[in-house]
């Protein structure tokens, strides 16, 4: 049922109750209901009981329903229960105390009214009325007896003395101020004092009273006296039988009746006394009814108060829980995904603000969901593009001849391409620990590289490695690149391994071609003077030997010189070819350097700068080969500087446990185009150079699993950088 209709119903009911109450009040007032009414009062009482029971019934019904709703866990029932019982408790005790107190006050008041001196006053007034009553009746009786005695004494009942009887009656009426003086005979006849002032109605009433009194005398067979109402006054009258007054023997005697109307003030006072006493007695007799009526009214007010309190509790709780319930329903709708829902509850208080805030939240959620939907679509498209890109990269990796694998921050394989197996001969799969795999396959140098990269976690490093795996030798270029996340945190490592075998074969072929060309050139150079010397000798000899003595020594000297040059050339080639295998041992690196410098320092004009890191200490190297490396590099530098300038030698331990040796000169430097060829045997930029010095250096360094490269020296000159495990 809509709330508006419910409220209207309650208003109609309240108005109807007010009108019903007003109507009952008017009915009571108009009807002047008597206390002993057999129908109206019980009817009203029952109606009242029904109203009270109906109210109690509604009250109990609501409370029971509330308890059931609470048991069932219906939303809002807890708050409603709290409010209703709180209001009920708040009203119950004060109302009960008020009810109890009021009832006690009513009872005490009624009892207090009935207590003395009121009771004593009423009793005394009652006695006064009784005494006056007895007095007047006694007076009337005395007069009746006196008159009867006179009638007997003067024999006035004889039929011949009727006139005398009439005179006596008239005289008694006047002398004693009587209003009734009558002699009634058994035959129904009577004599009465004349009373011309009395009208017919008054006479009739008087006759009735006197006749009744006369009947009493006959019934009792003795005197009788009474006090009766006569019009607005009181009649005190008495009747006595006349002794021996029967007109016939054995018949009923005549009866003398006299009566006097009491003086008006006295009668009024007596009636006032009697009325007041009667009023009090009625009040006392009805005190229980009165108390009950008051208690009933108070009880009804009590029930109505409780009912109103409960109703207010229900009303207030419904006003509160209604919007909350709608909010809860809407929240469930929203949680179910229906963001279009809005709460329509009308409330102007904080609940209204809550509803408004909820609706705003729902609106914002709806907008956000639309944004999220759009973002999700964009994200899906991006993911699709990324997926395509990933597949493209995977395809690239699959088809790449370079071995590529990546490790996560824990050192586990996350990506690996088939070239890893092709180049390294190992089966790496995602999740593998590459260290364990490489150990099993004798690829320890790769492990060292990975460890060095893991420890440093910094820059990209690249090494050329020559590994002997079983019977085969691998020539690899390994590049280790640390990977970083969005927040620059370590995210893993990317390792690229390039097989240099083909390139080296090509380089070797090219080198040998160059060697062959240069050997041919070197051999060809002395051959020409030898050929010219031999042709000159044959010509001179054919011409007869003129100047033969002079030419022969020159020619032979020339031939010997050129042959010697050829011989040196062959020796150097043989020596290069016979370079022994390195035999590393532990030695202080400083000793190697100092022993080499001792050969040069002081013999040249070159300025020497030595910068050795004290932390280097002992190293595992072949000292002889390393001396050869240093000598070749220094010779090369001296030749480049033509004996003047500065040679700076610096050695230090760098990341990854590598020994870094730098030798810089201040010569003209090496053009970038020649740098790749500098380590090829027999390549030389010097006119008289053999081209084997740097080739030997490169051979020794690579035999130590190191690398060598050439950079520009600042401001001028060349810088040779050697990095090798120490």
């Amino acid at each position, binding site marked *: 049922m809509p709330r508006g209709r419910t409220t209207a119903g309650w208003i109609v009911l309240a108005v109807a109750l007010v009108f019903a109450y007003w109507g009952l009040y008017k009915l009571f007032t108009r009807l002047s209901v008597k206390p002993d009414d057999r129908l109206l009062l019980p009817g009203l009482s029952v109606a009242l009981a029904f109203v009270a029971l109906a109210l109690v019934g509604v009250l109990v019904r609501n409370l029971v329903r509330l308890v059931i709703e609470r048991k069932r866990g219906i939303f809002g029932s807890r708050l409603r229960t709290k409010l209703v019982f*709180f209001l009920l408790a708040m009203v119950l005790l004060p109302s009960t105390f008020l009810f109890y107190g009021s009832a006690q006050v009513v009872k005490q008041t009624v009892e207090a009214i009935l207590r003395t001196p009121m009771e004593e006053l009423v009793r005394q007034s009652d006695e006064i009325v009784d005494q006056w009553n007895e007095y007047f009746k006694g007076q009337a009786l005395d007069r009746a007896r006196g008159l009867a005695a006179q009638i007997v004494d003067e024999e006035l009942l004889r039929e011949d003395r009727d006139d005398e009887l009439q005179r006596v009656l008239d005289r008694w009426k006047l002398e004693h101020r009587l209003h009734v003086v009558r002699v009634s005979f058994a035959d129904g006849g009577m004599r009465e004092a004349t009373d011309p002032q009395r009208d017919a109605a008054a006479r009739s009433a008087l006759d009735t009273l006197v006749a009744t009194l006369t009947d009493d005398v006959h019934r009792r067979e003795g005197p009788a006296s009474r006090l009766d109402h006569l019009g607005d006054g009181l009649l005190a009258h008495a009747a006595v039988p006349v002794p021996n007054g029967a007109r016939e023997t054995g018949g009923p005697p005549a009866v003398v009746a006299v009566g006097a109307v009491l003086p008006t003030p006295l009668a009024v006072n007596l009636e006032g006394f009697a009325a007041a006493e009667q009023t009090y007695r009625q009040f006392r007799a009805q005190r229980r009814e009165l108390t009950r009526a008051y208690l009933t009214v108070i009880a009804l007010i009590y029930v109505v108060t409780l009912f109103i309190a409960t109703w207010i509790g229900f009303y207030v709780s419904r006003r509160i829980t209604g919007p909350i319930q709608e909010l809860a329903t809407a929240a469930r709708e929203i949680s179910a995904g229906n963001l279009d829902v809005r709460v329509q509850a009308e409330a102007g208080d904080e609940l209204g603000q809550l509803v408004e805030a909820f609706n705003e939240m729902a609106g914002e959620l709806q907008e956000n969901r639309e944004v999220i939907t759009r973002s999700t679509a964009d994200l899906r498209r991006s993911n699709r593009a990324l997926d395509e890109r990933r597949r493209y990269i995977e395809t690239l990796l699959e088809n790449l001849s370079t071995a590529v694998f990546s490790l996560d921050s824990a050192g586990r394989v996350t990506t690996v391409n088939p070239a890893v197996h092709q180049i390294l001969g190992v089966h790496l799969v995602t999740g593998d620990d590459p260290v364990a795999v490489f150990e099993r396959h004798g690829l320890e140098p790769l492990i060292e590289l990975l460890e060095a990269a893991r420890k440093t976690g910094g820059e990209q490093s690249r090494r050329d490695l020559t590994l002997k795996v079983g019977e085969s030798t691998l020539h690899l270029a390994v590049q280790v690149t640390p990977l970083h996340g969005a927040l620059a945190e370590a995210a893993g490592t990317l390792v690229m391994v390039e097989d240099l075998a083909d390139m080296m074969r090509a380089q070797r072929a090219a080198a040998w071609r160059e060697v062959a060309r240069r050997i041919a050139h070197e051999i060809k150079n002395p051959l020409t003077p030898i050929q010219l010397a031999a042709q000159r000798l044959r010509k001179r000899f054919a011409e007869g030997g003129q100047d033969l003595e002079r030419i022969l020594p020159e020619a032979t000297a020339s031939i010997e010189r050129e042959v010697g040059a050829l011989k040196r050339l062959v020796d150097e080639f043989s020596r290069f070819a016979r370079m022994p295998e390195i035999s590393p041992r532990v030695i202080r690196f400083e000793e190697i350097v100092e022993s080499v410098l001792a050969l040069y320092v002081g013999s040249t004009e070159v300025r020497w700068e030595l910068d050795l890191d004290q932390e280097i200490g002992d190293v595992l190297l072949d000292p002889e080969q390393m001396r050869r490396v240093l000598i070749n590099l220094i010779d090369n530098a001296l030749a480049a500087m033509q004996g003047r300038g500065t040679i700076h030698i610096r050695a230090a331990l760098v990341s990854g446990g590598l020994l870094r040796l730098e030798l810089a000169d201040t010569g003209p430097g090496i053009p970038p185009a020649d740098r790749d060829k500098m380590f090829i045997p027999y390549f030389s930029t010097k006119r008289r150079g053999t081209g084997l010095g740097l080739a030997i250096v490169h051979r020794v360094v690579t035999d130590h699993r190191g690398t060598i490269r050439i950079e520009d020296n600042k401001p001028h000159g060349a810088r040779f950088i050697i990095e090798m495990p120490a």
Partner: protein
Amino acid sequence: MRRREVTAGPKRPASGRLPVGCLCLVAGMLLQLSPGPVAAASKKPHVRIDGLEATLEHDRATVSFRVTNGLSENAIERIHSGIEVEFEHRVEIVARRSFLMPAERLAQTMIRTRAAYDSLTGRYSLYRTLNFRTRPRNTVEPLNDFLSTDSFEEMRRWMVELKEIPVFDPSRSLDGKKLRVRVRSNVGRRYVLLIFPSAIDAHAEQGLSP
């Protein structure tokens, strides 16, 4: 994983449970107020019908009985306060029928006795009204009677002792019927729990044979 429920208030809501002490207090106060009439009524002498006599002569029944303790202290007090007090006596002649059928009411006489006291004259005005009703509808005119007396005993007898009350329609044949006379006297009213009216009455029944 165990969930721990945290409640800000007491575990059980305080509302919804009135303290037992308060309820007992309220109930005690209400009980103290309510049973007054019941307690008073229980101390009063038991009202009963005594001396029920019924005679049936020439298809005319007369019934006599008295209502012992009918004129209660309260009724006397009310009479002497000037309030008119009326008793209602209902006399019925019924004929028994089969086991499941209720008895057939053949005739009924409703007697109302009323007393009014004049404290000034010290006299009781006594009224008696008899309403006859027989089946089928042939209601007889009511009989009214009046007596004025200063005797309390006479007033008492007038109110609660009824002698030779005529009950029956002589024109009706009673051959073969098992007759019974039922008497019910209503001599006042009291209230139970303040608002429920309850009659103070007595009833009696006995067989009626010609």
